[in-house]
């Protein structure tokens, strides 16, 4: 039976196989978002000495496991209220515009040594372009609802996302310099050789800048002024209800997973094992590259996202701008200069043969 399945799979045309993979990845991502919302509430609950959701059981398993699914069905059956003076066309399309870049970005992310939907040469640029389009969902939602609070949230987040994109782009320039390629598969492969030869070691300031900008890009705490509950109710999606609201929620969490995956790919070797090539452990199964390493790294960064949310108070708007423009961008510029020096003396990643 597995044999016939395998031959049937191989006999499918390439486009059909790609479509199946796209479906699998999309559904897996949506499931991950559902579980992430539960994990978030659990983790923050534990950090605040509460229990978190613990009522809805799924198949009698872990208490609380059914919570995200219960939430989804609740949102699906709720009425979507459209404000009287809203611009209906844009009001309806905005959640989808927010969602599409978050999912489309997965096309170029190498999930395992031989699983990637598109081996695009300009993968890094494609990711930058897509992450810059994510802001449209937010500003269109804020404008079309014809509500003061939604519009204020949209303006805040538009300014914030445009500002942090620059720092993010510069951090990726550093990655590009260290890897010599914009193809994400090659970026991962060029970090081979264990934990210490991965990009984070030589690009540590850029890693920090990238992750902070990533948190700001996704409008997560402590940079969540776009939806500052105490000031502007819920920001750009204040007028959305039911499934339209759920789509924004889905986009936000999918973006968190995406940023975690990208941090893992750019700075921590993606699907490479941290002990690859080490004596002893490197030759066991723990030293082999696989999807599970990527999943583990994504999980760790997602935990950091939640940890931030439970720990830090929200930044004030002017502090966000100051951090983005006056702290993160200069750090990246200085480190690009440092990289130039390292490159001219062939230190670190620039000592490899593929660089020359």
């Amino acid at each position, binding site marked *: 039976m597995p044999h016939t399945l395998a031959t049937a799979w191989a006999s499918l045309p390439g486009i059909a196989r790609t479509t199946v993979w796209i479906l699998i990845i999309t559904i897996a991502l949506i499931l991950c978002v559902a579980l992430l919302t539960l994990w978030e509430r659990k983790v923050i609950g534990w950090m605040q000495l509460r229990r978190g959701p613990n009522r809805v059981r799924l198949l009698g398993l872990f208490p609380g496991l059914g919570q995200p699914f219960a939430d989804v069905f609740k949102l699906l059956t709720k009425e979507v209220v459209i404000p009287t003076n809203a611009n209906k066309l844009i009001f309806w399309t905005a959640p989808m515009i927010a969602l599409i870049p978050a999912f489309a970005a997965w096309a170029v992310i190498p999930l395992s040594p031989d699983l990637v939907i598109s081996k695009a040469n*300009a993968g890094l*640029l494609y990711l*930058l*372009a897509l992450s*810059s*389009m994510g802001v449209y969902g937010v500003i269109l939602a804020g*404008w079309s609802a014809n509500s003061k609070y939604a519009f204020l949230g949209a303006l805040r987040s538009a300014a914030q996302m*445009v500002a942090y994109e620059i720092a993010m782009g510069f951090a990726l320039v550093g990655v590009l310099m260290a890897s010599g390629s914009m193809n994400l598969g090659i970026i991962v492969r060029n970090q081979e050789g264990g934990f210490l030869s991965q990009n984070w070691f030589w690009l540590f300031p850029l890693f920090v800048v990238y992750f902070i900008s990533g948190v700001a890009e996704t409008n997560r705490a402590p940079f969540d002024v776009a939806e500052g509950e105490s000031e502007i109710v819920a920001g750009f999606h204040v007028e959305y209800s039911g499934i339209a609201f759920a789509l924004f929620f889905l986009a936000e969490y999918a973006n968190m997973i995406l940023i975690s995956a990208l941090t893992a790919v750019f700075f921590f070797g993606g699907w490479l094992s941290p002990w690859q090539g080490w004596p002893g452990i490197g030759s066991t199964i723990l030293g082999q590259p696989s999807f599970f390493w990527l999943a583990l790294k994504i999980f760790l960064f997602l935990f950091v996202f939640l940890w931030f949310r439970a720990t830090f108070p929200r930044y004030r708007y002017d502090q966000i701008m100051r951090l983005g423009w006056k702290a993160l961008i200069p750090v990246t510029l200085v480190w690009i200069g440092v990289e130039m020096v390292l490159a001219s003396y062939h230190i670190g990643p620039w000592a490899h043969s593929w660089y020359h």
Partner: protein
Amino acid sequence: MLVQILFLIFATLLVAAALGLITARNPVYSALFLVLCFCNSAVIWLLIEAEFLAIVLVLVYVGAVMVLFLFVVMMLDINLAELRRGFTRFAWLGWVTAIAVIAEIVDVVWSHGLTGLDVGRSAAPESASYSNTLALGQVIYTRYAYPFELAAMLLLVAIVAAIALTMRRRQGLKYQDISRQVSVRAADRVRIVKVKAEKRT
């Protein structure tokens, strides 16, 4: 064949979006049509394997310039009747510009000769390992290094000029000195006063 069909689809969309851009009454719709225009032209560039240019077009124009555009347009409260009044007054200027642009296009097409311009043939496809970005980088940083750096300097000067124009210290403006705010100590702000308890009289 597939490429040509795709080209026709996206070129049609591009022209339709451009028409929508100039005919839409709502300025926000106009801005969104312009975004659609950029996306479609990016796809057309992708079809001739200029992926770097295509993605940079989306990154810079869609991702940054148009966001700021929308930002401004959304906050405007545009009075259409007032706009229409100006329309007939400045219509001749629009016509002159349109005719000049059309004349330039016609001139370019004519100088190549209509027969010499083979519109049905696309460029020979490059091999899979060909990197558009690499090729562009090699040309820009070697052959065109000086023009490229000059353009960069020009942009830098423009940024400085824009900042200088908008940096105004208004009188009586209250602003926060963040470094002073951060370095403040409790002793600077709070004075602990010990008051002796008094006896009830």
